[in-house]
């Protein structure tokens, strides 16, 4: 098999989407104090690349790229379908917001290089590259490497403040993540042993429902769930996400956990569609339901705002897994087919925006008040009205209330659940929405309370940070007003199993 010319005609945006951030990370180290400037240059550029990739997928359909010209199974292929393109664009937009927010917090004094400033930007670029590698990879082993890249960028981010509790949280995060990747790798090994390839497209052709495939799928799923922090493997998430600096929390909660979720879907719907059983789908959804209820109740009981937001992530991740048994469950009555698939993905995207906004908002309250104890944030709403508004708008999406991306997502999941007769998942979603209302309004109430004397921020909060937060929150709302564009993009290269269901 001699090297063949790249089989596709278009410009390889797919390669550039991965390359740009990773090259940036490599360059950040020798650039030292200029790393921030580099990142601020690359992130908008990366957004353009992401959009161009999405446009390419939109125009030409699924994009594949054989790296080095070596086609699978020998070589590694990259693949972008609508789902990947949506995730890559989402990542770039969230990062743009986060970068805008962080550009003043992680800034070294002129002519000097500081630890936090250099490492934040270098890790952020590395994390971005890892995310894109995970969204665009089509080889299970390569995805393992991408996941490790992600872990090794994410864990130091969680402990960037290097306080005792963040060190412990980061270490716990590392253990869960490592155990997760090893289990994932173990499953991949079994698949290679059985089918002689790890290419997702080839596996879909070769893998059949056999015990060894089930074992592999179980191991890989378990590993990915540990990384996604799906209940009951969520223990590491709240302290790790709440302890990180606000900008890092936003990225970790909005994007990093989504990568492993993305891979669960890749595995179940793309690589092994004929292998998964309906019972396994129900089990996964049951864990999701557990996450929704358990996470929401715990969020209701948090005293600190960042922990509340972190537990809300635990809960919101649960919704994503409800889509597994629902996919393909649309009855004949829906003109929108594969409603649950689109709903789940839309939920992942709108949650990414909403959660990033919430963590950044929580960070600003923390900055302004010097603490983030919810009950003592009285009157902050008057001091930071824009941030409060952003927090409320993001909350809208978490509640799944219109107009927000969260609502359309939930709507699609709900209608599919009812149409396929799985009403119990609908009930869970309703309960989750009410609980979410509980914790979002619990956080908002003290903010809006009137105080005798106007509250002044202890430290000034820069205007551009407020705009960044509001911008991200508006993105999550905008998805509810015009979800059409991502929706249509999502249909490109949609796995068949998404239409027909699993098992």
């Amino acid at each position, binding site marked *: 098999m001699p090297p063949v*010319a790249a089989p596709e005609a278009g410009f390889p945006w797919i390669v550039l989407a991965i390359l740009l951030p990773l090259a940036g990370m490599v360059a950040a180290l020798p650039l030292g104090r200029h790393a921030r400037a580099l990142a601020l240059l690359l992130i908008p550029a990366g957004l353009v690349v992401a959009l161009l990739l999405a446009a390419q997928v939109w125009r030409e359909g699924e994009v594949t790229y054989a790296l080095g010209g070596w086609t699978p199974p020998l070589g590694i292929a990259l693949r972008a379908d609508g789902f990947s393109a949506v995730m890559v664009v989402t990542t770039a937009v969230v990062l743009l917001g986060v970068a805008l927010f962080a550009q003043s917090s992680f800034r070294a004094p002129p002519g000097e290089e500081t630890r936090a400033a250099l490492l934040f930007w270098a890790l952020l670029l590395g994390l971005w590259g890892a995310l894109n590698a995970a969204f665009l990879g089509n080889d299970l082993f390569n995805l393992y490497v991408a996941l490790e890249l992600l872990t090794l960028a994410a864990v130091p981010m969680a402990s960037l403040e290097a306080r005792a509790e963040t060190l412990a949280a980061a270490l716990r995060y590392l253990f869960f993540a490592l155990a997760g990747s090893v289990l994932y790798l173990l499953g991949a090994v079994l698949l290679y042993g059985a089918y002689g390839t790890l290419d997702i497209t080839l596996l879909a052709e070769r893998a059949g429902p056999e015990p060894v495939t089930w074992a592999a799928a179980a191991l890989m799923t378990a590993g990915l769930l540990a990384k996604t922090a799906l209940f009951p493997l969520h223990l590491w998430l709240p302290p790790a996400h709440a302890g990180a600096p606000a900008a890092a929390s936003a990225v970790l909660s909005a994007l990093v956990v989504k990568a492993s979720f993305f891979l669960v879907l890749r595995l179940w719907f793309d690589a092994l569609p004929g292998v998964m059983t309906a019972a396994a789908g129900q089990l996964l959804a049951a864990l999701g339901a557990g996450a929704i209820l358990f996470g929401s109740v715990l969020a209701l009981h948090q005293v600190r705002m960042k922990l509340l937001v972190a537990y809300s992530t635990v809960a919101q991740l649960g919704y994503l897994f409800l889509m597994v048994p629902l996919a393909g469950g649309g009855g004949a009555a829906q003109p929108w087919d594969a409603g649950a698939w689109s709903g789940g993905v839309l939920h992942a995207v709108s949650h990414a925006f909403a959660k990033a906004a919430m963590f950044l908002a929580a960070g600003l309250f923390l900055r302004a008040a010097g603490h983030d104890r919810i009950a003592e944030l009285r009157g902050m709403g008057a001091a930071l009205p824009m941030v409060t508004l952003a927090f409320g708008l993001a909350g809208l999406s978490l509640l799944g209330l219109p107009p927000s991306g969260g609502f359309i997502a939930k709507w699609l999941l709900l209608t599919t659940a009812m149409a396929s007769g799985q009403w119990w998942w609908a009930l869970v979603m309703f309960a989750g929405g009410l609980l979410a209302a509980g914790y979002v309004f619990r956080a908002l109430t003290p903010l809006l309370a009137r105080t005798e004397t106007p509250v002044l921020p202890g430290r000034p909060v820069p205007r551009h940070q407020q705009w960044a937060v509001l911008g991200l929150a508006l993105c999550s709302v905008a998805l509810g007003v015009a979800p059409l564009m991502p929706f249509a993009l999502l249909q490109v290269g949609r796995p068949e199993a998404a239409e027909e269901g699993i098992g």
Partner: protein
Amino acid sequence: MTALWLLDLCLVAVILAVALSAVAARDLFAATVFFVAYGLLIALAWVRLDAVDVALAEAAIGAGLTGVLLLGVTARVHMEARTPGPGRGMRLAIGAGCAAVSVALAAAVLSLPVPAPSLVPAVEAAIPATGLGNPVTAVLLAFRGYDTLLETLVLLLALLGVWSLAPDRLWGGRPGLRHRARPEGTLAWLGRLLPPIGLLVGVYVFWIGSDQPGGAFQAGTILAAVWLLAIMAGLSDAPPVRSLALRLVLVAGPVVFLGIGTAGLFVAGAFLGYPPAAAKTLIVTVEAALTLSIAATLALLVAGAPERAP
């Protein structure tokens, strides 16, 4: 055949026994020693599995560097765990669960199809285009070069992660403590004797890597070990992390890899592709740069976060 079979059985038995001891040992130090021994035994197992490249990597990295890393930290972290572990019943249950996983895996192994699917024919068909003789190197640098690229970035990120733990005031400083060995002591003697030999071995392992077992990772590890030894013997000091030269060395491998990979976009029609005529030269160039960067990265990973002010 039978003799080898018996040897295999013995080896496996010892491996399992040592692994169990490493988990069950009472104190941390003993567990670490068991683990290093385990690494060496596993390297033997790799030889038995016709994977000399892996055996080298395992001996150098799995047993060697990981061992140094763990032994080094055992010397500095003395405390025992204070949180009580799970109770006896719980431990039994967990043990049963883990045993069940093992049994299931064993069943999966036994149920793998015969004949085994493999990529051997594909590799054999494609290897001439790379000009390499060692198929493992061909996979690492050509067919799955993208994996290797990401892997070097994993190392770099890990180093950034380790450095991120330094206190702000020490940022830019040197990692670890200054080692001063007695000039006439064994360490100093070894420190003077081994580096030249190690250097030679390292370069050799790198050089033969294109055709024989060996290559950038194994060679880089050996060179890293040499450097670490020199540091421990007090012959040289760990460089300050703000040093531009050091940083350039650290990124040289990825930069060259990325650069040649990008050039492939234009001359070979695909990112990370090589034009067949120049394939071997390019691959060896990438490997050379990688060896250098890997050596520096691994050594600094073991050295740890900056602990001395710049």
